[in-house]
């Protein structure tokens, strides 16, 4: 009999006041009992809508049934059929706009907590599982993957399971892409990312760090000189956007990429770290996505007295995951909706040109916005209200308004066509304009989510298999 409770089994979390001052994971995870209780809420629909909402088509009712029975190993096997990164997906997928959005239980009450159970299954496996991933017998075909973020890791995992010899090339010194440099420890512990990558290595995937494809080695060389039959490019979204505001180059104005990379990849939050990070008293984050939430909550954990998020649209328009918004609000992050920055103000001491504070941020001038006519995205376009300017005192500004595709690979790979927005142009199977070159994730779409990148990696893996094996 399914568990007919209307609400999800609650997720244990660290208290907001406590977690706002540490980098440990916020959500503590289900116990066995919690997971079984929640999984039992699944009605095991004949026609499971939840699966239609999943970009990698996890067999959701199947794994939930196994969890409800208490067979967590079997549940992990079911997950593994579709995803190489279940511990990651369970934590960072926007379930409320994907699988859980479609769940029938959501019509009368809350949908099944699919992400929470997925996370439990993966964590349980990583802690208790004894069976090592089995390396498939090699089919002798070699594939190169550019970038070790979610798209690359997924593509690599699927190909390795099918017997391909896969090498991933990573530009940074630690693999994981955005999972490593972008998403903070309190949302996705790096030990989990490392474990998922270990699992891939067990499958035979090789990872070469500190190799920048398009600089160290060209894509063409991978095919012609290094003998890879296909190349998948999952190099991410690259260049951070700025607003071209006066004062945007002052000291203390950082892109979210820089702020988070210093913190997460370079571990600047740890005592004795070799890489510095600005520890602000009053931080302002511009933007409303997951990255903005991550930056705001990182600034808070680094010791800020106040952290404000400035967003030009309304609360309903925030693109971030619901859970991140709620967590940020609980932790005391202030949200200034319908507000847009117009200028960043710097300190200047005319008496002493050598004053070390010269050129540092001391404030941000903003303007209030109101909702105008709907724009191309269907959302009502925010327009400035004349004369509504005001100044926020701050000593750190983090610009978190998206990224543009990095031109590094397009500019060094002849014949590779670009999209209008500067991404790599691909067809519905992830195939580019060049034979044997595939691409997916943010390198194609511009900034999007982990799971969409994984979906793209999966699609390309299938296309590569079909192309090489016929």
């Amino acid at each position, binding site marked *: 009999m399914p568990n007919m409770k209307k609400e999800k089994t609650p997720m244990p979390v660290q208290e907001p006041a406590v977690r706002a001052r540490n980098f440990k994971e916020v959500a503590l995870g289900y116990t066995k009992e919690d997971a079984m209780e929640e999984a039992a809420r699944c009605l095991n629909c004949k026609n499971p809508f939840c699966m239609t909402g999943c970009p990698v088509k996890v067999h959701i009712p199947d794994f939930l049934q196994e969890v409800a029975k208490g067979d967590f190993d079997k549940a992990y096997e079911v997950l593994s059929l579709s995803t190489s990164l279940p511990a990651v997906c369970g934590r960072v997928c926007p379930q409320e706009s994907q699988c859980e959005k479609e769940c029938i239980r959501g019509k009368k009450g809350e949908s099944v907590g699919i992400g929470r159970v997925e996370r439990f299954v993966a964590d349980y496996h990583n802690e208790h599982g004894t069976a090592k991933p089995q390396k498939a017998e090699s089919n002798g075909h070699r594939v190169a993957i550019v970038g070790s973020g979610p798209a690359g890791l997924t593509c690599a995992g699927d190909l390795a399971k099918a017997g391909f010899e896969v090498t991933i090339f990573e530009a940074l010194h630690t693999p994981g892409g955005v999972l490593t440099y972008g998403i903070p420890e309190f949302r996705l512990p790096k030990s989990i990312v490392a474990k998922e990558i270990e699992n891939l290595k067990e499958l035979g995937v090789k990872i070469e760090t500190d190799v*920048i494809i398009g600089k160290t080695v060209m894509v063409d060389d991978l095919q012609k000189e290094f003998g890879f039959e296909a190349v998948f490019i999952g190099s991410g979204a*690259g*260049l*951070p956007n700025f607003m071209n505001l006066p004062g945007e180059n002052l000291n203390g104005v950082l892109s979210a990429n*820089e702020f988070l990379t210093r913190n997460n990849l370079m571990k600047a939050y740890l005592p004795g770290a*070799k890489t510095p990070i600005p520890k602000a008293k009053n931080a302002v984050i511009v933007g409303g996505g997951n990255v903005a939430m991550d930056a705001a909550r990182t600034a808070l954990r680094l010791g800020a007295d106040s952290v404000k998020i400035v967003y030009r649209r309304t609360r309903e328009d925030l693109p971030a995951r619901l859970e991140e918004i709620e967590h940020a609000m609980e932790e005391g992050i202030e949200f200034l909706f319908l507000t847009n920055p117009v200028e960043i103000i710097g300190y200047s001491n005319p008496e002493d040109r050598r004053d070390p504070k*010269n050129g540092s941020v001391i404030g941000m001038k903003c303007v209030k916005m109101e909702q105008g006519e709907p724009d191309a995205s269907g959302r009502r376009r925010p327009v400035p209200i004349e004369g509504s300017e005001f100044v926020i005192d701050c000593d750190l500004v983090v610009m978190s308004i998206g990224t543009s595709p990095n031109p590094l690979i397009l500019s060094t790979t002849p014949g590779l066509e670009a999209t209008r927005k500067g991404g790599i142009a691909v067809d519905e199977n992830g195939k580019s304009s060049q034979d044997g070159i595939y691409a997916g994730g943010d390198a194609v779409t511009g900034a999007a989510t982990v799971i969409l990148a994984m979906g793209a990696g999966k699609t390309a893996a299938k296309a590569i298999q079909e192309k090489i094996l016929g």
Partner: protein
Amino acid sequence: MVEILEKEYLNPTVVRMKVKAPLVARNCEPGQFVIVRAEEGGERIPLTIADFDRQAGTVSIIFQIVGVGTRSLERKEVGGNLASFAGPLGKKTETEGLKKVCIVAGGVGSAIALPVAKKLYQQGCNVTTVAGFRNKDLVILEKEFRTYSQKFILMSDDGSVGEKGLVTDALEKEILAGEKFDRVIAIGPLVMMKFVSLLTKKYEVPTVVSMNPVMIDGTGMCGGCRLVVGGKTVFACVEGPEFDGHQVDFDLAMQKGMAYRSFEQKALEEDCNLFKKEAE
């Protein structure tokens, strides 16, 4: 991870290191840089390539010991490894079509200027090098510059070697003596590049400078290396590191260079204390 093949002190605070890095050696050109990490957990340090040998698969870097990062690099010995050596990054120096060039090198910047001088000289360009140092103990690469320059002018702040004065004094003298340079390539401290650029602007000599701002990834991802060139914000790592000296906002670059100074000073003190304790 790359192996250290050679290590040599060019002066008490400047070290040359040659490493085995065939993938970097295979594609690199003068003007490009690498990101180096001395050890796990260490900083990512951008360093311009000083020399390379494609056949042998080796690359040399030359660095001045200024902070904790370069100090940890200095502690590495031949036979040991560097945790990371990623590159080549940035754009190469444009040398095509140049017939007569003046290289202005200041301090440790000479290390980066030398491969440019060498490449120009080898392609038949007439090279004048003006190199400036604080005093005679700090002079590096003099012999090499003499090899790859038709004319070599050595300057020192205190007159202990070469002529007493600034590199700009020597450059202006050359220009006033009627030397017509297609281009001046200035590589050294920001303040030197600023004043070289001001001077050459006056005489309308096209000038290229090599910028070395703070950066993390070196591939365009962090945006920490932002500079303003010709009124436009650019990322030095992908659009540089070389820019038109007449367009660069040097004052902003100098201001940005101060951003982490207090952290660096504190870290250096701690590092020194640690080292003292180890020595005791």
